[in-house]
């Protein structure tokens, strides 16, 4: 295994040829499905109350990549989303801002303009999102367009077909190429775990993405079911923890899709805390790809402060 005495040098070595990369990935310790799911379920029983809950709710808000990825997106919709990102709770200026707004490449400029000077990043999906079924040239161009329009973060998809057929080198090279095309932008690599299916695959894909230069590994596009799940996120958190032990580098994790309630978000934060550790309780290293989650966090936040649940109409739609 890689963690105890494998340094950066020997990890560079594993990517020196497709054969070595393949052996390395297949040599990673297996994940027992029953055990991983049981561990996630146990972490989900933690009871987070009062001060701990207040901390977790505010942290979760600051970790949101507020997302709209629809064919029907318009500049108007994106402007509205940006307004929400800046001031999530119109009734309560103490509610923190979200981490980023996530859109398709053609709407990056709109978002960038709206979020100027706020410290909120603009994230753009790229690389023929969500299927990734296009040529490398187009994926590179897609990425460059997004970055040129001002994207601070690029959320790319991996070629799941190549991964599942064992062409790890191809997946690696593609991530590396996008890494280069993205320049200074933060690169989030979407594994689409709902299509990889097994936890063994999730662990291998996580390592593959990290070795190829990902700043973040992300579960899902949100277009495939199941999207993010707690056990998948647990396995990815174990991967970034082990990668950190091997290299000293911190890689972020972003579960995306399907996280709709504050209660769920808190389960994820507990899992982060007890798996990767407190270092990862930071928007720089953990994000939620979500849209409807934000309102539930705000509602719970108000409940905690005032003792009452405001109705859903007291929170804005987008």
């Amino acid at each position, binding site marked *: 295994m890689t963690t105890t005495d494998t340094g950066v040098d020997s990890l560079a070595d594993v990517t020196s040829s497709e054969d070595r990369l393949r052996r390395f990935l297949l040599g990673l310790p297996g*994940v*027992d499905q029953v*055990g991983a799911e049981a561990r996630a379920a146990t972490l989900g*029983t933690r009871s987070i109350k009062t001060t701990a809950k207040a901390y977790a709710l505010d942290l979760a808000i600051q970790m949101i990549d507020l997302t709209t990825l629809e064919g029907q997106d318009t500049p108007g919709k994106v402007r509205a989303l940006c307004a929400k990102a800046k001031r999530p709770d119109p009734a309560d200026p103490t509610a923190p801002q979200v981490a980023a707004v996530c859109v398709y490449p053609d709407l990056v400029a709109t978002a960038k303009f709206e979020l100027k000077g706020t410290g909120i990043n603009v994230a753009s999906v790229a690389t023929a999102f969500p299927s990734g079924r296009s040529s490398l040239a187009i994926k590179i161009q897609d990425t460059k367009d997004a970055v040129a329009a001002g994207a601070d973060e690029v959320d790319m998809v991996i070629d799941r077909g190549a991964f599942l057929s064992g062409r790890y080198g191809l997946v690696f090279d593609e991530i590396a190429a996008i890494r280069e095309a993205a320049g200074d932008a933060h690169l989030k690599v979407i594994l689409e775990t709902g299509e990889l299916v097994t936890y063994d695959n999730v662990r291998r894909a996580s390592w593959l993405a990290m070795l190829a230069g990902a700043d973040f590994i992300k579960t899902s596009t949100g277009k495939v079911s199941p999207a993010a799940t707690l056990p998948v996120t647990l396995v990815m958190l174990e991967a970034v923890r082990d990668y950190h032990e091997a290299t000293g580098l911190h890689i972020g994790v972003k579960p995306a899709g399907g996280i709709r309630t504050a209660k769920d978000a808190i389960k994820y934060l507990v899992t982060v805390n007890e798996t990767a550790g407190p270092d990862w309780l930071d928007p720089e290293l953990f994000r939620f790809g979500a849209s409807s989650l934000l309102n539930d966090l705000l509602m719970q936040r108000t409940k905690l402060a005032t003792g009452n649940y405001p109705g859903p109409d007291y929170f804005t739609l987008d």
Partner: protein
Amino acid sequence: MSRFEYAPAPESRAIVDIKSSYGLFINGAFTEATDGKPFKTVSPASEEVLAEVSEAGPADVDRAVKAARKAYDKVWGPMPGRDRAKYLYRIARLIQERSRELAVLESLDNGKPIRESRDVDLPLVAAHFFYYAGWADKLEYAGAGENPQPLGVAAQVIPWNFPLMMLAWKIAPALAAGNTVVLKPAETTPLTALAFAEICQQADLPPGVVNIITGAGRTGQALVEHEGVDKVAFTGSTAVGRAIAKSVAGTDKKVTLELGGKAANIVFEDAPIDQTVEGIVNGIFFNQGHVCCAGSRLLVQESVYDEVLARLKRRMGTLRVGDPLDKNTDIGAINSAEQLARIRELSQVGEDEGSERWSPECELPTQGFWFPPTVFTGVSQAHRIAREEIFGPVLSVLTFRTPQEAVEKANNTPFGLSAGVWTDKGSRILWMANQLRAGVVWANTFNRFDPTSPFGGYKESGYGREGGRHGLEAYLAH
């Protein structure tokens, strides 16, 4: 950014109603003890006295056995299985309805974390009654002959580590098979058994079918030695089990004994590492290690020793030790001062014999009985901490080089209750399971229980099986 500190999340005690004193439950009613002295049961987490409990003397034992005999002869024995099943289903449902209350009571009296009493003990207790309720009218299909008959009156003595669960393991199959019972809970944890007596009343169970008498070793001895008893079922220490076996020798009493263990938890180099670490933790720190089948001897293949140890220690650093009623507590209180003294003594022996002792930093409460999760490394087969049952949160780590060596070391113990095997190779799991002399072999998991699965020991871990179809046989004549 500040750290994510979990605020206290205590489960409310308001749901339990503990009386200041309890009598004995004989013939369907609580009665005063006639010849014993009352004793106190305390919360091991705070040493607070919870209640005063009666001690049953020989005359009380006699009354209880006679009540059970009468109920067996007149009501329960002749009753059709389908009618017995109705009572068992009713009890199972009442346990589910009152599960939160029973979980809180169990954690208070025993010291185990509420997360475990709520998520493990109580669901299994109800499941056991449901499972055996299903058997009550199908005994002729249990593999115990064409027309299996109950044994009569069962004397049952249970330990303090899983008070209500051990009660369920004993009472459910006995009643399903048509026996009546006199059960004695451990002296440090009588409260849930007494709550179960109330449930029997609530379920309208005919008087005398279940009798609960409280007391310590003397009461237990009087019960198992009573001549009106047809069957003795005991779970507890090997020393007491041996004494019971001697005392019933030469009588026609049937006996099942579920005794101590020193289980090997065997980790191969191809094990799913993160789940294995969870399994090691669950194997030895579940229920503060007060588990007869605890994975107290960790056998790690030398090639992954450093990595497994590093990960295990890191994981142990996240264990939360403290108030059993806090929903976020992973490790609760040691059940009694006596048990704490034994754990301390054997741990000291471990150090004296040259093993290296390690515990994560953790603040222990000042009141009550506490012991931190502890690992001993550099342990060899010859060390006492590798041979004797510590019955606490103390893990001894040994190594092996080949599967054959793992089997030899695992079997090289007077006990044989359980074992664990961690590997990705299916064929090796099957080979190991055939070689290991243990009643239960878990593969890529540990401390998993199910009412359908038989449980019991080899060698000094006892004889007879509880659970499953096999568990019925212990209560049937054929």
